[in-house]
Each structure stands twice: as structure tokens, then as C-alpha cells.
């Protein structure tokens, strides 16, 4: 371009790496561009400033410069055709109407004509037949004439009418045709529909038939599971399972199990401390979730379920043996006062000890010795498995067993509602219920079909509800619940979210109910046994040692409310309260967390076991009162009852019905409660030993135990409980170290070394946080835009002024010209007139 039109922005300093956008400018070009733009927009606006009417050009693509004129034309044409397409003349009755002449189609005539012409070529060239000419050139009159000639009598009357008639006839004809066509179309539609239906029927038949080739009967809607299918499926499972078992040696398995448990334990500890809560959120914390992905777990639980399934038969056959085994067990475990053996009555007695050992040693992994033991345990388990397989084979031969098994169908659909679920389980024995549940799980495993996951997730809720219902019965079926917990555990391992949601839902309901009662009455009562069972189940399903857990933490708060808000008015309340205390203790047994409510409650329990007198040295808090009517609830005065008391485990059913119990029994229950209370105190003392203010926490209880409890009146056994509790309390060393704050990080001194900031992009300010930077950027952009806008407005005004000035000048020039013209003409007139005058004068 012309070097005189180029403006160069000279740089004072050359800076490396800086890109300059505006080093060369073309003022002339940019000015002309601006002017052009203004003439197109601003000038137009200016010229139309007082005009209300606007001319809008709506032609297609008129202002679109991207389209070439040819294309534009084509598109417009296409558009026009499109618009006209399908749009019919409303007066046109027949859409593809042919033009007629004397009721004959013109097209047909034309065709005929051609043929005639070609024929006539040979016969009489150049001559047309009379008829043809009549049709062609008669103007319609020929036909009429012909008609007239046929009916000559009433020629005069008919002639004016006939034309009208003809038209009417034509119309009638076309209408009829139209109707016919419609009828034809409808019938065709009907036919296709019918065909479709037929095809569908046939198709469904085909589809239904394909999966099972032999079952041709249409009536069998739900395929009855035949044994072959079951065996195939079972074999399928076995096949999947076997290789991984066989491939690994027992030591490897044991080692793997140990590693797994160690990892889980480490996870648990980490969660307990509540550190890196955010960090670990991404990775799944539980291994078993992965295990489930492949659809089959080689865990103990599956095997256990299997054993239960077979256990039904075992029980029938070997009941005598079982009983013997139980007795033996009880002899062994008498000192423990444990009813473990009863719980596991289904299991084979030989395996029971090994099972227990293995389970016990799972979490004590520190010593090698124990891990060896565990390995041994695993070995035993495997033996147990193989033995089971053998027994299965034997069982298959047994006809009796087959009869027993045939009672239950092999496949179950997941029940859609709680009612169907209940009816499925109603009237079955525990073992049958377990089998049903197991089969539901197996048949609807998430890996088998898409919707199964959601279905089984529902099952968790149903099972929980069912357990709650069993627990809230008049005579709670706790044995059944005891067994149902196992499938629940397995389901929970598969669907943690669903399980946590359902338990949370239950807890929320319970808490909500209690809150409502408190609002209405001002005090609450203990909930039913079902809620307590739910809380217990929570501790079985979820790790209670976590710092925060979506289910356990609400459960904690709810239990705390139970212990602080609920009134203690009856012996049942005491038992329920003690149950909650046990729950609390169990929840915190691993994490050793401090529960003030627990201590308060135990203190209160001790308080109500004392004869009425002024409490000294300690204060009881809500829900217990130092004075009031519910004191002495646990006080036993009857000497005989005191003597005849034996420590017994409290049956949970007393929670729902206690009224029938006699006075002596009541007293015995009271003493058992007291013994439980002593034991809990002992356990608390062991648990909270490490707390710095242990003695302050336990002080009221100690005062009560040492100064107020009438030890000498207690029976021998209770005295033992008492002394063991007191011993646990007293032989703790008092140990206080003054607190020191954690050291703060020292604030670094100010230094003179330059602050080095990473430069990511030149020409942009780096300081400040991201938000601050964004704000600055926005401000700067706003400023720039404002400046630009002002400049534009100014230029617009200049442009307008220029145009206005030129307009005025133009107008002035025109006026001047006109005036000059006028003056000129006047001058010539004058001149002429003068000339005339002079001539006259001369003449």
C-alpha cells in the first residue's frame, strides 16, 4: 500500500516475547471503512427519521450476501413450489381433475387423436373424421346437437336445461368417484391393519416358542423351572467359582484373606480418626464392593447360606445329634454363660468350633501365631465345604430330601410390594424363609438382568420392615430375626446405599415421632422393641467406629435423645434404657468415644435402686429426678427374693410383656438389671480409662457406689458384680499433665529477597486471588468498552453534523442557483422590454 497512508506506532523499547497488535495502522482505510458503515446505518436512520412507514424486503435471502444470485433464485423457486405444494383450490373438488370436453377427458382425446391421425395417414390423408372435428371444434355444440337430433320432440325445452344438466352430471360423477376412492383407501388401510395384527400374533408365537424348544404349550405362561435349568444354572455358578479356588493354595488364600482384613482394619482406623475425610471420598473404601461386581463371592457368607439351605435337611435327619452337640457345647461354655450354641444350631456341630475360631481371629492379626491359627481355620472351612459338597451328592440320591425340597419353587421373582413379600414368607419355617430369600437373591442377581439391582434394593427395605414387624409382635420372634439378619447383612454388602437409605428412613421416622410426642406432651417414652432392634442391626451392618458415618452418626444422636428425653416410669423402661446403654457401649467399644449420656443414665439407674433419701455428693440429671414418684423403681426389699436370685440373662420379650410376671420374678429382674448396670459401669471404666478427666467423669458414680449402695444387703453374686465394678473404678492412677497448646507455625520474618511470581501470560496482572483477578479484568474491560463507546458516539455526531452541513450547503446552493436563474430571466425580460421600448422610440 501507499507508504504515505501507513502510520507506524514506534516502540520505545523492544521487549522480548511481547506481541504487538497495533504497530502499523492504516488510518485512511479504517476511516473510509467507518464512513461506509455509517452511511449504511446511521445515514439511513437519519434519512428515515421522520418516517413511520418502513419498507421491508421479505424476499428470501435478499440481504444475505453469502448466497450467490443463482442459488438465491433456485432457493426462491423451491420455496415457492413448497408453498404451493399441497395447497389446493377450495373450489376444486377433484384434486387431479382432468380437463374435459363433452364429458370426455381431453388427454384421452388427444391420445385417440394421435392414433386416429396415424391411422388416417394411411387411409385418407389430411381429412379428419366428422366426429373428431365435432369434438374438437364444435365448441360443445356438436354434442348438444347430436342429442337434440336423437330427441327431436322436446328440443326447445331441453336445450337450455341440458347444459346445466351436463354440469350437474359431471359434478355428481366426480363426487361419486371421490367417494369410491375414499372407500377403497379405507378398505386398504383396514386390510393392512389386520395384516399387522396377524403378524404380531404370529411373531409373539414365534418368540415365545424359540427359548424352549420342547415346551410347545401356549398355556404355560410362566415357565415352570425344571431341574435341568436349575442344575445348569448351578453348574454355571460352580464353574465360575471353581477355578479361582483350585488355583490358589491354602496358604495363599489365607494370606490374601489376612491382607484383606488388614486393609479393612487400617481403613476403619483411618475413618475412626476422621482424618482425610475429603481425600478418601473418591476411592471406594470397601473391598467387598469390588468382589460383588463379578457376581459371586467366595466369602464365608455364601457358604454359610448354602449350609443353611442344606441345613434344613440336616436338621430333620440329625436332630438327635444336634441336641447332643448342643449339650456338649453348653458344658464347655458354661462359665461363659453364652447362648452361642443355640444360635448356631443349624450348623454342623463339628465345624462350629472352627468357625468360631476363624471368626474370632479375624481382627487380631498382630501375631503370627494367630494368623497361623486362622490359616488352620480356613483349612477347616475348606474341608467343611468339601464335606458339604459330598453331603449334597448324597442328598441328591435321597428321595426323602427331594420331597422336602419340592415344597419350595426354585425361582422367585422379587416381590413388588411389602404385602407380597410378607405373604411369601408367611407360614414358612425359618429355614424355608432363608432359602426363599437366598433364592430370590440368586435368581435376581444384578449381573443377570438390568432391573434386578433396583428390585433387590427394594428387598432390603422389605426385609427391614419385616424384621421390624416381627419385633413389634406381641411375642417378638427374635429367633427368626436372628437368622434373618444374615441375608440382610449380605444384601447390605451388595447395596450399601440402599441399606443406609432405608435405615436412615426408619431412624428419621422414629426421631420424628419422638419429637412430635415431646412437642405435644413435653416428654417422651421409650420406643418399641423394633426400634431397638433396628439400632442393634445398624451396629451389625455398619462400622460404628467411624468419625462420621451417614447412618451411625444419626443413630448416635437418636440414642442420646432416648437416654436424655425418655421418662423412666416402669421396669420395661429401665430394661430398654439399659439396652440402649449396651448399644452405646457397643457402638463406642472400638473407638473408645466418650458418651456423657451413658454415664448419666447409669448413675440414674443406681439412684433409683436406692431407698428414698436425700442424694448427697452427686446430682442426677434428666430424665431422672432427685425427688419424685418414680424413685425406688429398682429397689428390692424382699429378703427371700434377694436370696433366691440367680444371675440370669434378661429375655428381650420382657420389654413388651411384663405384666404377667409375679412379684418374685419382678424382683429378680430388678436384681438382674442392677447386675447389668454394675457390669456396664465396669466396662465404661475400662473404656474411658485413658480420658484425662476420667475421675471427674466417674466421680458421682463412685460416690454413689461407695457411700450409698447397700452392698451388705445384696446377694452374694450381685456383691461380686459390685466389687468388680468398684475395683475397676478405683485402681486407676490419677494422672494430670498441664495442657499446652499445639505449637503455632512461626510467622516468617519479612525478607528483602525479591518475591518471585510465576508469569503465566504477559501483559496480565498476576497478583491477587483468582476472584480478585477476574474482578480487575472485568473493571478494565468495562473501562475500555466505555472509552470505545464514547469515541464511537463522538464520531457518529461528527458524521451527522457533516451530512447536515452538506445538506444545508446543497440547499443553499440550489436556492442561489434558482434565484440567479430568476434574476437572469427577469433581466432578459427587462432587457427585451427595454429593447422593445427603444425600438418604439426609434420608430
Amino acid at each position: 500500500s501507499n507508504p504515505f497512508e501507513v502510520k507506524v506506532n514506534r516502540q520505545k523499547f523492544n521487549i522480548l516475547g511481547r506481541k504487538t497488535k497495533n504497530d502499523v495502522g492504516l488510518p485512511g482505510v479504517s476511516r473510509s471503512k467507518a464512513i461506509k458503515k455509517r452511511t449504511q446505518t446511521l445515514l439511513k436512520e437519519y434519512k428515515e427519521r421522520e418516517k413511520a412507514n418502513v419498507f421491508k424486503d421479505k424476499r428470501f435471502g435478499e440481504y444475505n450476501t453469502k448466497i450467490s444470485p443463482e442459488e438465491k433464485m433456485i432457493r426462491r423457486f423451491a420455496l415457492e413450489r413448497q408453498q404451493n405444494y399441497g395447497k389446493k383450490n377450495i373450489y376444486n373438488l377433484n384434486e387431479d381433475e382432468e380437463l374435459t370436453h363433452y364429458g370426455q377427458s381431453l388427454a384421452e382425446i388427444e391420445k385417440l387423436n394421435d392414433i386416429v391421425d396415424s391411422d388416417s395417414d394411411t387411409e385418407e390423408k389430411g381429412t379428419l373424421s366428422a366426429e373428431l372435428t365435432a369434438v374438437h371444434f364444435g365448441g360443445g355444440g356438436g354434442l348438444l346437437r347430436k342429442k337434440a337430433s336423437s330427441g327431436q320432440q322436446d328440443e326447445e325445452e331441453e336445450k337450455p336445461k341440458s347444459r346445466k344438466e351436463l354440469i350437474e352430471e359431471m359434478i355428481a360423477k366426480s363426487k361419486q368417484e371421490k367417494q369410491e376412492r375414499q372407500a377403497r383407501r379405507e378398505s386398504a388401510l383396514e386390510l393392512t391393519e389386520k395384516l399387522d395384527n396377524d403378524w404380531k400374533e404370529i411373531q409373539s408365537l414365534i418368540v415365545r416358542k424359540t427359548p424352549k424348544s420342547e415346551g410347545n404349550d401356549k398355556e404355560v405362561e410362566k415357565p415352570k423351572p425344571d431341574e435341568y435349568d436349575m442344575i445348569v444354572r448351578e453348574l454355571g455358578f460352580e464353574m465360575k467359582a471353581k477355578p479361582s479356588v483350585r488355583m490358589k493354595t491354602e496358604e495363599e488364600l489365607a494370606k490374601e484373606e489376612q491382607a484383606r482384613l488388614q486393609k479393612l482394619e487400617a481403613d476403619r482406623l483411618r475413618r475412626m480418626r476422621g482424618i482425610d475425610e475429603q481425600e478418601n471420598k473418591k476411592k471406594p473404601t470397601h473391598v467387598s464392593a469390588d468382589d460383588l461386581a463379578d457376581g459371586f463371592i467366595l466369602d464365608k457368607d455364601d457358604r454359610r447360606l448354602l449350609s443353611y439351605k442344606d441345613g434344613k435337611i440336616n436338621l430333620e435327619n440329625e436332630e438327635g445329634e444336634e441336641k447332643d452337640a448342643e449339650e456338649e457345647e453348653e458344658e464347655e461354655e458354661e462359665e461363659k454363660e453364652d447362648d452361642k450354641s443355640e444360635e448356631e444350631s443349624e450348623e454342623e456341630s463339628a465345624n462350629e468350633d472352627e468357625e468360631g475360631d476363624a471368626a474370632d481371629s479375624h481382627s487380631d492379626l498382630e501375631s503370627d501365631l494367630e494368623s497361623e491359627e486362622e490359616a488352620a481355620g480356613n483349612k477347616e472351612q475348606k474341608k467343611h465345604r468339601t464335606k458339604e459338597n459330598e453331603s449334597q451328592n448324597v442328598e441328591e440320591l435321597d428321595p426323602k430330601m427331594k420331597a422336602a425340597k419340592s415344597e419350595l419353587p426354585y425361582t422367585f421373582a422379587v416381590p413388588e410390594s411389602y404385602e407380597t413379600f410378607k405373604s411369601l414368607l408367611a407360614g414358612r419355617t425359618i429355614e424355608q424363609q432363608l432359602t426363599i430369600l437366598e433364592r430370590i437373591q440368586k435368581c435376581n442377581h444384578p449381573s443377570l438382568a438390568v432391573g434386578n439391582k433396583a428390585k433387590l434394593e427394594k428387598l432390603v427395605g422389605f426385609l427391614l420392615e419385616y424384621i421390624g414387624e416381627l419385633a413389634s409382635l406381641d411375642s417378638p420372634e427374635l429367633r427368626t430375626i436372628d437368622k434373618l439378619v444374615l441375608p440382610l447383612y449380605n444384601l447390605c454388602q451388595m447395596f450399601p446405599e440402599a441399606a443406609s437409605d432405608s435405615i436412615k428412613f426408619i431412624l428419621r421416622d422414629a426421631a420424628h415421632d419422638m419429637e412430635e410426642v415431646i412437642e405435644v406432651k413435653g416428654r417422651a417414652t421409650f420406643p418399641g422393641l423394633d426400634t431397638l432392634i433396628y439400632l442393634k442391626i445398624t451396629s451389625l451392618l455398619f462400622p460404628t467406629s467411624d468419625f462420621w458415618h451417614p447412618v451411625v452418626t444419626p443413630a448416635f444422636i437418636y440414642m442420646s435423645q432416648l437416654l436424655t428425653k425418655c421418662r423412666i416410669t416402669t421396669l420395661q423402661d429401665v430394661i430398654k434404657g439399659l439396652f440402649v446403654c449396651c448399644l452405646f457401649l457397643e457402638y463406642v467399644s472400638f473407638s473408645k468415644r466418650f458418651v456423657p449420656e451413658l454415664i448419666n443414665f447409669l448413675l440414674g439407674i443406681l439412684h433409683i435402686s436406692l431407698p428414698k433419701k436425700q442424694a448427697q455428693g452427686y446430682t442426677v440429671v434428666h430424665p431422672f429426678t432427685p425427688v419424685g414418684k418414680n424413685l425406688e423403681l429398682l429397689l428390692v426389699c424382699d429378703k427371700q427374693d434377694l436370696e433366691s436370685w440367680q444371675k440370669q440373662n434378661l429375655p428381650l420379650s420382657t420389654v413388651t410383656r411384663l405384666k404377667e410376671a409375679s412379684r418374685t420374678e419382678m424382683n429378680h429382674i430388678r436384681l438382674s438389671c442392677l447386675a447389668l448396670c454394675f457390669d456396664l459401669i465396669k466396662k465404661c471404666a475400662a473404656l474411658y480409662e485413658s480420658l484425662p478427666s476420667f475421675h471427674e467423669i466417674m466421680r458421682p458414680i463412685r460416690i454413689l457406689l461407695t457411700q450409698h449402695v447397700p452392698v451388705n444387703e445384696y446377694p452374694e453374686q450381685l456383691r461380686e458384680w459390685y466389687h468388680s465394678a468398684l475395683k475397676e473404678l478405683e485402681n486407676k492412677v490419677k494422672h494430670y499433665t498441664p495442657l499446652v497448646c499445639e505449637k503455632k507455625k512461626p510467622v516468617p520474618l519479612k525478607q528483602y529477597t525479591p518475591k518471585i511470581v510465576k508469569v503465566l501470560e504477559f501483559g496480565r496482572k498476576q497478583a491477587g486471588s483468582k476472584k480478585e483477578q477476574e474482578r480487575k479484568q472485568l473493571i478494565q474491560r468495562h473501562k475500555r468498552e466505555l472509552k470505545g463507546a464514547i469515541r464511537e458516539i463522538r464520531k457518529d455526531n461528527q458524521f451527522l453534523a457533516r451530512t447536515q452541513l452538506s445538506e444545508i450547503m446543497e440547499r443553499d446552493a440550489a436556492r442561489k442557483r434558482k434565484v440567479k436563474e430568476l434574476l437572469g430571466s427577469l433581466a432578459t425580460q427587462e432587457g427585451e422590454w427595454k429593447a422593445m421600448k427603444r425600438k418604439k422610440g426609434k420608430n
Partner: protein
Amino acid sequence: QLPTALYKKVLVILHDSILPYMNEPTLMMDFLTVAYGIGGAISLLALNGLFILIHQHNLEYPDFYKKLYSLLDPSIYHVKYRARFFHLADLFLSSSHLPAYLVAAFIKRLSRLALTAPPESLLMVIPFICNLFRRHPACKVLVHRPNGPEDMSEDPYIMEEEEPSESRALESSLWEIQSLQNHYHPDVVKAAAVLNQSLSEIEDDISGLLELSAYELFDKEVKKSAVDVPLEFEQIRGLFGKKNDIFAEHFTLD
């Protein structure tokens, strides 16, 4: 003279429905002083009216703080009027002219009593104590005693002492708060852990925490959504089938 229920009712509305409309509110002085001396919930309620008299009508109340100190017993964390009481206590202890021994005694007693408090009260009282530390930096020896004796066999603080000045609170340390760092409620643990570090300058606003109820706490926890749910990995063997199950020792399933 009055039945307890009526007494409470009168005292509840006294400060905003009766005192402002009296020509001479000072006439209520005797009534309130007697009520304040009764103890328990009635004393807590009388505090509000008394505060108005002291604040607006120049009532001189000897040993006011001693009396307030003796009002602190385990029930303050459990009673209905907890929010009211702590609101007033916050006012009374906001003065920076109070001696350090007095504030220390209050802190020590409050935290000692906190060992029996439910979580909703703990969530309120721990920030309360933190605020006291901020107002009275001289009390910080309670949480930070770098050159103290290595080992003590007894807490120097005397709980039974009625007189705050004799309670030796300043020689003690806040072991109670340290114990509460092992509380089962995660929020309490977090609140208590604040005292491990040096406190920030800005006071916590406890007005929102005064009315906290257990149900609100529960609701808050239940509504938290978790990304994943950790599971118990220990295999169970029935309802009471955990190892070392406490229930198996004391309950049967009958």
C-alpha cells in the same frame, strides 16, 4: 409463697411484659431477690428480671457473680431455659473488667459440668468458653501452661468451693475439654479441638447455637448426603453374634 408453676410463669414474662409497664420497677426488687435465692430453675428465671433492674435501675447486688457461680449445676445443660440462661450469662461475662480468677472459675465449672451434657448443649457451651478465653486472655493458662509442673496427681480445682476466688481454677487446666475431644459426636470433637490451637481474634457468634435442639442435630445429620457408605466387614453370626458382644452376656432372645 406462690406455687412453683405460677412462679415460673410469672418470671418468664416478667422482664418484657411487666417491668417495662411499671412506674417503679424497683418495687420488684424484693420479689426478684427472693426468687433468685430459691435456687434451681426459678433462680435461672429470676436472673432476667434482675438483670434489667441492675442494668437500668442501678440496683446494687452484692456477690452477684458468686450467686451466679453457684447457680451452675449439672441441670443447666438439660433444662428448658438453657438458651435464656446462657444468653444472660454471656452478657454478664462479657465485661472485660472481671478478674481473671472469676472467669477462670466459671470456665472450669462450665466445662466440668459439660462432662454430663448432651451434644446440643456441648455444641453451644464450647464456643461459649472459647469466647470467654478471647475476652479474657489472662485465662489462657487454662489451655496453655508451657512451664507448669510435669505431673499432677490431682486436679487443683475445687468443685465444691462456693467462692470462685477460692476454687484455684487458675492453677488447673481444661482436661474436660480434652476429654470431650473424644466425644462421639463429630461436631463436638471439632469444636473442642479448636482449643488445641491458639484462638483466632474474632468471637464466635453463639446466638444461633443457643436454641439448638437434639432433633435439629439429628435432622442435620440425616440430611447430609454421603458419597459412599462404609460397611462393616466383620462377618456376623446373628443378632448378638459379634465377638465380645455385650448383649450376649446379659440378654437372651426369648
